[in-house]
Structures are given as C-alpha cells and as structure tokens.
C-alpha cells in the first residue's frame, strides 16, 4: 500500500511538472500574469511530492520490504541500517530518483529565492527545469520504476554489491549529484535569458552564484569519490581515468571555466556569449555523464544496469536538451553584444587564457572517453584509451594553466601590466626555484620533472599567498593596519586565495606520491618483516572475525622504527556469503599527511600469503587540496555582492516596526 503511494506521488509529480512546463510558458507568451505566477509555488509542490516518494522508497529499504523488486535486488535484511539506506541510491532506479529529487530540490530553492527576479525570467527558468524534470520522471516511471512489485515476494534480498557497502556510498553519490544537477539552474538560466531578457551583470552574478554552489558539491563529490576508490578498491591509486571519473571531471573543469568567465561578465560585461555557451555546455556535460553511466555503454565498476532501451531513451533526452539549447543559442546569440573592451594583457585576458586551456582539456578528456565507443561503432575495432593517453595529454595542457594561475589575480581589469605582476611574484618565483633546487639535490639530479612539479606546486601556493600580502598594503605598512585590512578583505578574495592554494596543495600531493612513493608485493609469513621508507613493518598473523553479513580474515601488522613500536594496522579480506563475493579492506596507517597502505593478496599456505604494501608520502594533500577548493567556494559565496537587497529588507523591517 505504502509503496503504491510512493509510485502514485511520483506520477503526480510528473503531472505537475507537465503543468509547470506548459502553463507558465504559455502565460509568458500570452502575457497572462496569473499563470506565470503559478510557476513558483508549483516548484515547491513538485519537490515535496518527489521527496515524499523518495522517503517511501527509503522506508521500503529500512523495513526490508521484499515484495519490492528493487529492494530484493539491492538489499539484505542483515545489512547495517546505514547501508540499507544508502543502498537506495546504490542501484540504477534509486539513483535516478535521487537525481530527480535533487533537480526538483534546486528548482524549489530557486523558486524560493527568485522573488527579486523579473517575473517572466524566473518563470522561464522554472519552465526549463520542469522540462528536464518531465523527461527524467517519465524515464523513471516508464523504464526504471523503483516501486515495481515482485510476485511472489522474495524471502531474502540479494544484498548490495559489497564494494558499495561503505560509508563512501552514503556521501559520494548525493554530493556528486548535487554538483551535476546544480548546473541545471545555470543551464535553465541561460536558456531563459536567451528566450527572454538580456545578458547583463545580474545574469553573470546569478549564474556565478549557482555555478559556485554546484561546483562546491561537485568538488566534494569528486574528492570523496577519489578517496573512496583509493581505500576501497585496494589498487593503491586515487584516479584511474575511468570513463565514469572522466564523466565527472568534464563538468568540473567546465564549471571552473564557467565560474571564472562569469566574473568577467559580472564585473566587465564582456564574454557574454561565451558565458552563456559555457553554462549550456557545463550542464550538457553533466547530462552526458549521466548518459554514460546510466546507459551501461561504458565498461566500468559504476554501471549497475545494462539495458539498451534505457540507454536509447537517455540518449534521446540528451539529444533533445543539448541540441535544443544549442539551437536556441545559435539563433539568439548574435543579438548579444559585448560592451566591455579590454587589452589582451589584463585580468580578462588571463581568464580567457584559463578558459581556453580548461575547455581544450575538456575536449581532450571527452574525445579520450568517447573515441573507443565511436571507433567500435564505426569500424568495429576495439581499442582502449587508458591512463597513459590522458597523462600524456592532460598534464601538458595543465602546465601553462598552472603557470598562469598566480598572475590572474595580480593583473588589473581592462589593461594590466605584466611587469608589475611579475615583480610582485618574484618571491614566489624564488621559492619555486629553491624548492626545485632542493628536490634536485636530494634526488641527486635524477628527478628533473618531479623537481619542476614541486616547484610549480609551490609557485601556485606562494603566488596565492602573495596576493594576501599585496592586498593588505605595500611593503612597510605597519602590521596593525595590515591586520585590520586583512580582516576586511572581501569573501570573493578569500575564495580565490583558498581555491588557488588548494590547487597547489593537490598538485603537491600528487607529485609527492608519484615521486617518493614506494610499492612492494611480497610473500610474507607470520613473524616476517619488510623494510619500507626507512621503517619496518612486521606481520603479526591473522584472526577470523564474523561481521553482520560477512566473514573476514583480519591480518595484523606493526610498524616499528629502530625497534620502537610506532603504530598498528589491520587489513582484511571479507567474504560475503549472500553474493559469494570477496572484497579486501585496505589497512591504512597514518603518519601525518602520509600513509602506509596495505592490501592482502592470495594465500600461499597456512601461514604465508602475498601482500601489497605501499608507502604514500603526503598522499592526503591530494584530498586536502580538494577541501581547500571547497572552502574557497564557500568563502566566495559569503561575498557581500550575493546579498544585495538584504540590508534594504532589514531596514524596511525596522522601519515597519517603528511605525507600529
């Protein structure tokens, strides 16, 4: 009964979305303000319906209702509660529902805060959002219904894929989807602006606001997903250039380009056409990501369902939205006029440089991901485009971008002076050179590329810090005054500083791991030890342990330095009887920002076994940098300019109160 209610609520949401896609649109065309005005409240209502429907599905998972096909396939009554809940989106149907839930959530939030927008523009954004919602709700209801009953009901569930039984699943997909789907607002905004309205500073500000919000979540999702893959898969890597990872990287890169170009639009009313196009491209890439993952067209650990019908439907949705938006763009873009002129060497110029390289990288990743598919369709040859290709193309493209990062914020708008910026960056340059020389010295001149990489990381970090120094005064400014100014620096400034420092930190972590990391695969017996990174790891033997829905062999290791015990670490091999699947649980021993990483391999005989062991110096910097970038995004959101009208409203409230 409950489950049917959920199904019904979803159908109701589809009907309301249809209403919202048509009626306010007609209202805009026929100038009927009443039907236009319905757009905002209906957006909230659709969200409530989808949210309730989602709750019904969660409820079915919690009580392990095995009369529902989806629950039978992806849950198990003995599973811990957390995994029962996260299992809701650990499968195709549930994750599509989550996607739509987030879409309608953003529509509702947008509707709530769009009071100050011109009414038609706000309604058109919601109309466009509803079109997307209709497409995906219909997709869920007709091809992948999570509320499908099973007759007769199952006795026991088939369990969630053991790799997914982890706290990572509870956080990573929702975060990632918040990022992916958040860009839909930018997309809808661009479409609405092309239909009605003008591309002005207000457009720039709002697109940037939503781009930053989505980008924060996307960064979080990717960072978390990367760490999850790192410790869960037990391959010792943090990025595999897996097609699905690429699918999330592309909107991320494009989002970075968008939130930079939107600044130019907002402050200098230039790059208008380009920003509109970027807003469309970014969400198109999110949609493409959804298609790649959900259609099962790719070879990857991420796809849950292989069903060609679904693939075709998503492809049609994709073609409709991307094609439609680009067509609209082609018709309307010539009417947009840029007004801000600028010299190539200026902050605008730096941002164009940034956009050019970022979008070239996006194009590279895109072709690398799609090329094997295209080639197979066209010629039938099967090839693989793996990590080497991406490393060879991605890194050279990132290099000029990273070199230019510290220059950007130091150049002035309109017409910059590269000599002054260079002079201010002398310190960063010196630090970078010193680091380069130091690394060359300790590696005895062996690692030239790595040394350059370390230098580059410090160039980016110190360059961003230099900006703080410059903004608070000239050399010789007294420190009290500096402190005062330091506290008054705007949120947008801190956003830039944190994000750029984060970039440097991530780069530092990646290069440190690749350069100084150690890896061993050894055959080990109880009592044996292995020397790694100047220390010793001793194998203390193993024990058998019974978990809630698995059995595991726990292997214990001790880390010692000159016979002093420093740490203890456990790694294990789990066996899940319900799916007869084995997984490994990585043993991680933290040492500051570095880690020892141990994974059990095969058993040889009673006591001996193969283990893989890594020393990962400064590895945590990779993800720490991600958090810095997110913090940058949050700071950027606190900037005063996003709170226009707040003071005015507050004053009005005080005024009203004094009248009473």
């Amino acid at each position, binding site marked *: 009964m409950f489950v049917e209610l959920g199904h019904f609520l979803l159908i109701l949401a589809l009907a309301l979305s249809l209403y919202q896609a048509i009626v306010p649109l007609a209202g805009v065309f026929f100038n009927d303000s009443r039907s236009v005005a319905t757009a905002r409240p209906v957006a909230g209502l659709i969200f409530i319906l989808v949210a309730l429907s989602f709750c019904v599905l969660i409820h079915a998972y919690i009580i392990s209702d095995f009369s529902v096909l989806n629950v039978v396939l992806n849950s198990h009554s003995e599973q811990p509660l957390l995994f029962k809940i996260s299992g809701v989106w650990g499968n195709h149907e549930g994750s599509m529902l989550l996607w739509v839930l987030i879409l309608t959530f953003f529509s509702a939030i947008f509707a709530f805060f769009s009071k100050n927008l011109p009414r038609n523009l706000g309604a058109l954004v919601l109309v466009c959002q509803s079109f997307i919602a209709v497409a995906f709700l219909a997709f869920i209801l007709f091809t992948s219904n999570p509320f499908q009953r099973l007759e007769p009901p199952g006795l026991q569930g088939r369990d969630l894929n053991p790799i997914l039984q982890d706290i990572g699943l509870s956080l990573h997909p929702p975060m990632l989807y918040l990022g992916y789907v958040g860009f839909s607002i930018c997309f809808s905004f661009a479409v609405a602006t092309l239909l009605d309205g003008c591309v002005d500073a207000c457009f720039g500000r709002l697109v940037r606001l939503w781009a930053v919000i989505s980008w924060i979540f996307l960064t979080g999702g990717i960072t978390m997903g990367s760490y999850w893959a790192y410790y869960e898969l037990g*391959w*010792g*890597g943090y990025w*595999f*250039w*897996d097609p699905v990872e690429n699918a999330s990287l592309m909107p991320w890169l494009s989002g970075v380009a968008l939130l930079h170009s939107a600044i130019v639009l907002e402050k200098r009313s230039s790059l208008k056409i380009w920003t509109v196009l970027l807003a469309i491209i970014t969400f198109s890439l999110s949609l493409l990501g959804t298609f790649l993952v959900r259609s099962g067209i790719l*070879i*990857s*650990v991420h796809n849950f369902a292989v069903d060609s019908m679904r693939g075709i439907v998503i492809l049609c949705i994709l073609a409709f939205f991307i094609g439609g938006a680009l067509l609209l763009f082609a018709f309307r873009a010539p009417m947009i006029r840029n007004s801000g*002129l600028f010299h*190539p060497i200026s902050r605008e110029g730096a941002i*164009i440089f940034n956009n*050019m*390289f970022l*979008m*070239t*990288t996006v*194009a*590279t990743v895109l*072709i*690398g991901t799609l*090329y094997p598919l295209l*080639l197979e369709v066209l*010629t039938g*040859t*099967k*090839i*693989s*485009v*793996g*990590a*080497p*290709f991406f490393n*060879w*193309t991605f890194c050279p*493209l990132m290099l000029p971008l990273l070199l230019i990062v510290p220059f950007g914020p130091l150049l002035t708008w309109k017409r910059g002076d590269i000599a002054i910026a260079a002079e201010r960056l002398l310190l960063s340059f010196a630090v970078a050179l010193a680091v380069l020389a130091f690394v060359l010295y300790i590696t005895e001149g062996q690692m030239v590329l790595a040394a350059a990489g370390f230098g580059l990381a410090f160039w980016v970090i110190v360059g961003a810090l230099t900006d703080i120094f410059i903004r608070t005064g000239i050399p010789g400014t007294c420190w009290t005054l500096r402190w005062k100014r330091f506290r008054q620096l705007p949120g947008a400034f801190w956003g830039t500083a944190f994000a750029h420092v984060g970039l440097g930190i991530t780069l530092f972590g990646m290069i440190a791991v690749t350069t100084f990391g150690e890896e061993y695969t050894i055959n080990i017996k109880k009592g044996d030890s292995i020397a790694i990174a100047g220390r010793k790891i001793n194998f203390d033997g193993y024990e058998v342990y019974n978990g809630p829905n698995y059995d595991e062999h726990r292997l214990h290791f001790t880390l010692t330095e000159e016979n002093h015990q420093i740490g203890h670490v456990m790694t294990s091999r789990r066996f899940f009887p319900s799916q007869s699947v084995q997984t490994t649980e990585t043993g991680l021993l933290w040492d500051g920002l570095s880690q020892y990483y141990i994974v059990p*391999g*095969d058993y040889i005989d009673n006591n001996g076994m193969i283990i893989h062991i890594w020393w990962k110096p400064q590895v945590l910097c990779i993800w720490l940098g991600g958090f810095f970038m997110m913090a940058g995004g949050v700071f950027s959101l606190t900037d005063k300019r996003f709170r226009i009208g707040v003071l005015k409203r507050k004053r009005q409230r005080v005024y009203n109160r004094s009248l009473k």
Partner: protein
Amino acid sequence: MRARAIALQLRCLVCRNETISSSQAALARDLRLLIRELLCSGNSDKQIIDFIVERYGEYILLQPPFEGPALILWFFPLFVLISSIVYLILAVKVRKSDTLPLLTQKETERIKILMQDCNSR
C-alpha cells in the same frame, strides 16, 4: 623491472580498468608469469607486447598506438588549442578594425547636456 614496465602498459581483461601489474585476477597473474618467461627466453619488450597483442587484440593495450586512426585522437587536443588561439587572434583583429562608436547616441546627447551645464556654471 622490465617485466613490470610491460605489465603496466597492459590492461587486465577481467577487471576492465586496471593494469596487469596491479590486478589480482588469475588471468593477470598468468600474464605476468608469461611476460617473465618470455623475457627470460630472451625476447625484446616489443616482441613480447606484439605477441600479447596478437593473442588478445589491441584492446589489451592501455595506450592507443601512435599510428593510423588513433592519430586523430592524439592530435585532437593540439588541434583544439591551435584553432582556439587562431580564433582569438582573429577576434582581436576584427575588434580592432571594428570602428564601433564608443558611445551610443543617447550617451553623446547626455554628455552634451552635462558639458553645457558645466560651461554655464
């Protein structure tokens, strides 16, 4: 060392996106052993890779070959970058030759009025 370098270039066919070197699947282990044996019997790196590609198809190579249709793939980034640079240069040139009036008519009139105000004061 050489065996590992070769294994790093090959894709595990069972795990899909792992190298032979890091994969724990049985097939990957067999291939690692095969590489070692072939090395010991005096084959060059290229001979071994060719041998394995012949047996399993080009799909097993993680890095697409630098020849034939894959060249499109390799040169695509460069192509995009160069064409965007060319586009930018053209855009700058067009803008320079474009004699846009700096102010719209409305603005010119407004300035005239303002200037008159100043002069009369």
